[in-house]
């Protein structure tokens, strides 16, 4: 197990020095840089103004310090805020890829073609994913579904973007949201028309190669009345990035009787086993259940990043609207995660459910932070929260910070929390039946997280199960 740990620790030495073909602007952040970004992207003036306003707001803000995480604050003047989309390292064949990374991909069951695609190697097979993506797009277009990069949307569907951008996560919301608003260059846009049920999982996976994954990603997803969409973000394959700071903003709008299922698998580089390096993932995700009987459901499997700061939330404005949050967060080595949700009940008879499963190994720290707020207008609102923590080692930490604010006496709010240590007895029981330790931990952990994994779309769920096992390899102690 130690040997495995050593290898995993080495894993990302390989990296970003190979042939990075990018067009970068100088590091630093000021109005001029923002003008350059906007001009390079050929943006309309309203968006430039919007960015500049965000920048002003950001300048007046301080970096938040309330989360239960410790890290060296990024130097915002040392970051380059624009690089051309294809800035991913380029390889000519899979042989050039870090063998450990390939091993992980093999074990996740990711096909050779997919591995090539994810690593930016041209795939020239008949069943290549580019053609899959093309036919996929044609089918969506027939239904009037818009699914494209946010930059493309600004050009092609400017009115929609202008109408909704920043309405769920305002620029003033927090330090990182303000920063993202000023400098975002990448991300996805999706619009599902009235009454349309999107017939397939919409996956950013299909977009990864087109645009790369941005450092300041911006996602806007609008589900019009009585529409339905299931959206997948990320992929289980380990993702490296030369950028240490990631500050994404995701905004969802669900209109009357619309339903959005948003699933995430986050597997950014977590740093080495001694806690060096790794991505800082500071994300603002929020959904607005705007209409009567609308529903937004967040499901996340978080295994990557050195520091995670993320609270996918729901504003339950429409009467009878429903918000759900299902989360599995795994931390190992020196990773730190402070994650949870906010459920803001405004409409009558609004319901929310929170199921959070934290798993901490190594010397890591895993915190759940959740707010359930029942406003005075939210008659008969209900919430059920369950926050479980599983400790794999004596040196890891689990913390729960539930905040409950109830301003309407008809509300029903239930909160349950448990913390347990993975049972030596359970592991031995599995060993005695012929399973090895890895299989045993995988089974026990997946059993523990089952309620959440069950919420993932099928094809994702199987990979996510393997991912949990791989993330926790050799971690019991």
């Amino acid at each position: 197990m130690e040997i495995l740990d050593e290898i995993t620790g080495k894993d990302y030495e390989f990296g970003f020095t190979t042939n990075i073909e990018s067009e970068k602007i100088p590091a630093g952040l000021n109005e001029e840089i923002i003008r350059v970004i906007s001009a390079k992207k050929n943006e309309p003036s309203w968006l430039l103004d919007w960015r500049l306003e965000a920048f002003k707001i950001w300048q007046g803000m301080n970096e938040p310090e309330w989360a239960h995480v410790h890290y060296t604050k990024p130097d915002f003047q040392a970051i380059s805020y624009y690089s051309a989309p294809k800035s991913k390292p380029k390889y000519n064949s899979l042989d050039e890829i870090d063998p450990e990374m390939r091993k992980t991909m093999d074990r996740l069951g990711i096909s050779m073609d997919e591995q090539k695609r994810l690593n930016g190697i041209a795939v020239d097979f008949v069943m290549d994913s580019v053609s899959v993506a093309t036919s996929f797009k044609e089918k969506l277009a027939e239904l009037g579904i818009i699914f494209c990069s946010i930059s493309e949307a600004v050009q092609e569907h400017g009115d929609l973007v202008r109408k909704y951008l920043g309405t769920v996560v305002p620029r003033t919301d927090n330090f990182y949201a303000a920063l993202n608003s000023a400098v975002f260059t990448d991300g996805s846009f999706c619009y599902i028309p009235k009454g349309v049920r999107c017939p397939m999982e919409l996956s950013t996976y299909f977009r990864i190669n087109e645009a790369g994954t941005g450092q300041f990603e911006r996602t806007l997803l609008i589900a019009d009345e009585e529409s339905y969409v299931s959206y997948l973000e990320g992929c289980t394959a380990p993702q490296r990035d030369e950028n240490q700071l990631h500050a994404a903003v995701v905004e969802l709008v669900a209109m009357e009787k619309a339903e959005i299922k948003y699933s995430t698998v986050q597997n950014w580089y977590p740093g080495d086993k001694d806690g060096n390096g790794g991505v800082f993932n500071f994300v603002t995700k929020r959904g607005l259940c705007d209409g009567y009987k609308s529903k937004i459901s967040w499901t996340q499997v978080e295994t990557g990043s050195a520091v995670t700061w993320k609270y996918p939330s729901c504003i339950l404005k429409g009467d009878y609207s429903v918000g759900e949050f299902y989360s599995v967060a795994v931390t190992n080595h020196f990773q730190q995660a402070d994650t949870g949700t906010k459920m803001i009940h405004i409409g009558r008879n609004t319901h929310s459910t929170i199921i959070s499963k934290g798993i901490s190994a190594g010397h890591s720290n895993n915190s759940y932070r959740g707010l359930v707020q029942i406003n005075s207008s939210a008659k008969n609102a209900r919430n059920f929260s369950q926050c479980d923590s599983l400790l794999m080692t004596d040196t890891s930490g689990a913390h729960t910070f539930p905040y409950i604010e109830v301003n309407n006496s008809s509300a029903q709010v239930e909160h349950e929390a448990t913390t347990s240590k993975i049972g030596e007895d359970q592991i031995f029981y599995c060993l005695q039946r012929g399973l090895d330790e890895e299989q045993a931990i995988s089974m026990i952990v997946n059993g523990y997280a089952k309620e959440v994994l069950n919420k993932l779309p099928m094809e994702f769920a199987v990979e996510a199960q393997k991912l949990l096992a791989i993330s926790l390899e050799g971690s019991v102690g």
Partner: protein
Amino acid sequence: MIEIKDLKASIGEKEILKGLNLVVKPGEIHAIMGPNGSGKSTLASVLAGREDYEVTGGEVVFNGKNLLEMAPEERAREGLFLAFQYPVEIPGVSNMNFLKAAVGEVRKHRGEEALSAKDFLALVKEKSALVELDGQLAHRAVNEGFSGGEKKRNEVFQMAMLEPKLAILDETDSGLDIDALRIVAQGVNAMRSPERSFIVITHYQRLLDYIVPDVVHVLYKGRIVKTGTKELALELEEKGYDWIKETVA
């Protein structure tokens, strides 16, 4: 089948097995009786490879191989099965998936092909009937919310699925009513064969009315202090363990 020579084991500073000798031949059923705390479960755990116990002396040969050198999962794959005195619950893990993985590993080790889903289900049906285990239980999470009796029957069901060479039953009878006891015994008896051996650990002679042993041992303070036939169990029942304690002292 198994040959235990002068086995010594401790937990922490405390020596629990103090030079234990036992030979079980293929096809035999040996009963091990003894007062609480004499080391019966310790013996079972040490044979199964639990790391909490440190083996400080002696040797164990299992089917010609050095058992003490093997990892716990290897011992299981080599055909050693332990029906736990206190089976643990594994929430969220279905009994079916658990057994499928276990049967898969054991078969792989024996060089047998993996069972098809259909054959696996047929096997489940056959073996669960043996211990009259409700079909529902097979589909629930491992031991989760099972009654004491259901847990014990589930142990015997797993044993039947894994077809071990040597099965150690640690107080599988304790806490069972007479019907459950009969069902468990029936499961064990159905598996008796000239190639399979059993070590039946029990506190009471009652079980031995149903599972008739070839040899009965009395374990006391970490040693086998008396060995006899089935009659020894009856004698113990009649005279109690004080009698043994006196003879040993």
